[in-house]
């Protein structure tokens, strides 16, 4: 018996079904397990974002349904789904969507406030997580005072703060320079290895793809390949990034 944390059952998504239909997803069947470090790749327009939105309950499939931890989230009432996301799913967005008026620590605490955790726990956990992502000295900085990479690390800390079952990240490194991107990947990988946090992220970036243990390739709204890289080789990654740097 498999331990599926997410399962999609024949999900399809058609945008503008009445005017110019766009078939963004076509009968996708996927299963994700606890502890995965998975990359979703594919050309632009292949349906990566659409798929991640389905997994996170941010959008509804036209057909089929999505189960998270045995709970069917497709067709859930809006407010119930929001609550479900709060308790079960972490998000990291491409544009590091932090609350601009809050400090790093407040941004991380905020999601725990929504979860109605105690003030003490919030404080403690926010500091701990910011330390882990290497921002122990930037706790009181506001998003505008931080670099893109730093903001994205705050976003990861925020996603972790709610203790979700998995974290979804749509192109988390797309707006980052190479060293920031690799640094973010290091942190995600470390969280994954040490604490078994499940990450599912989409990317265009070959260096990021190389770090994933499972790579799902989307083409034209369908799963083209779904490969397990038994051992993500750090040597290859290093060579790779060196090669790119010297180019």
């Amino acid at each position, binding site marked *: 018996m498999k331990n599926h944390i997410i399962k999609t059952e024949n999900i399809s998504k058609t945008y503008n079904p009445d005017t110019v239909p766009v078939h963004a997803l076509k009968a996708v069947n996927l299963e994700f397990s606890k502890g995965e470090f998975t990359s979703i790749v594919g050309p632009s327009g292949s349906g990566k974002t659409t798929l991640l939105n389905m997994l996170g309950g941010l959008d509804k499939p036209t057909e089929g349904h999505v189960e998270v931890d045995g709970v069917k989230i497709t067709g859930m009432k809006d407010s119930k789904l929001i609550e479900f*996301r*709060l308790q079960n799913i972490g998000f990291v967005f491409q544009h590091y*969507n932090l609350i601009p008026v809050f400090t790093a620590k407040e941004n991380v605490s905020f*999601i725990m406030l929504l979860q109605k955790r105690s003030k003490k726990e919030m404080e403690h956990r926010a500091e701990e997580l910011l330390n882990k992502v290497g921002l122990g000295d930037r706790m009181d900085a506001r998003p505008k005072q931080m670099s893109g990479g730093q903001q994205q690390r705050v976003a990861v800390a925020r996603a972790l703060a*709610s203790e979700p079952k998995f974290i979804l990240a749509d192109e988390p490194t797309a707006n980052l320079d190479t060293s920031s991107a690799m640094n973010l990947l290091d942190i995600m990988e470390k969280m994954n290895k040490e604490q078994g946090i499940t990450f599912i992220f989409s990317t265009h970036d070959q260096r990021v793809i190389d770090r994933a243990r499972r790579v799902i390739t989307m083409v034209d709204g369908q799963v083209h390949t779904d490969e397990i890289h038994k051992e993500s080789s750090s040597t290859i990654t290093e060579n790779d990034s060196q090669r790119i740097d010297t180019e």
Partner: protein
Amino acid sequence: MMQSLNRGSHEIMIDNMVRFHTGYAQVQDYRFEEEASLDNAFYFDNELENRITATNNRIEMVLPRIQTFMLAGNDYATRGAMVMGIDAEKEHAFNNLKDNLISGEFFEPNDRKAVVTAGLAKRLQLETGDVLVLIGQGRFGMSANALYEISGIVRHPIREMDNQTVYLPLAEAQFLLSADGYITNLLVSTSSDRFTNTITSAIASEIDDEELTVFTWTELIPDLLQLLEFDLVGAYFLAAVLYIVIGFGFFGTILTMTLERMREFGMLLSIGMQRIKLAVVVLIETIFISLLGVLLGMGVAWLFLYYLHLNPIQLTGDVAEAIIEMGWEPILPVSFAADQFYTQGFYVFLIALVVFLFPLVKIFRLNILEASR
């Protein structure tokens, strides 16, 4: 602001009109309204005074006046003047007339002296101590000519009256005009305009079967009242326009704020903030911003009004002339009632609530994907 100015002007204007000109109510011979002549004067004695005063306990007192047009002059010039025989003590009790003295003093009841208003004095180049000639007709065509020493010069707040009034002691005027015991107008005073109608109907029923009639001040100067109402409507209209302008300005602010934050709102819904919670936060923000605006606005307005209160705007030129014509003083006084601030603050608060509907609808309609794009 505008209402403050307007209300201030109106209060003072009504007060001046009532106290110096018409009284809150006025008793006349029933023919006097048609023909304001001495022939239509009526007999006034203590008995009538007591009867009228007794009709309602809101009546403070009655002020007898006998008035007619005569020629007033000196060696230098001659002008038409409104000669008014008054009980100076009573007038003073009603409108502080003596406080308006520019020079000299008021006559005693039995003096044979006159007090001239400042405008007339200027036109005739009269000063206290000079002699004034009055030429005219008394009751039933009797000739009425006399010389009076001017005991004082007084400023009348209604410009039209200021330019043409000669005050005489009541008894002296009655003698001059061959109208012993007769008066043309009996002003009735009360403590507040609220009682005008009450006292008027009380008096009306008392003098019902006599050749007398009673008017409220609004009946005596309907033209002015109309102007006033028109003016008030104008003020309310202006206020409405202002509120709309404020409303749209505020709406613009909130609109921009909301639209700018759609991505943020979308993110908050994504990570798990309930729409209702988000709405509450935005409501608090909206109220906070509006309160800040209201407090700031009130502070500035208060300072400005306070300044105007201490330094009323002196109007000059055409505007001033126009206002003088209407019997105002050529200043823009302000009404300084605190309740106006609260009311307007409350309106702005209401506007904030209405404006909040926009982010409210936006938040509840928000599509996460569209917002975060």
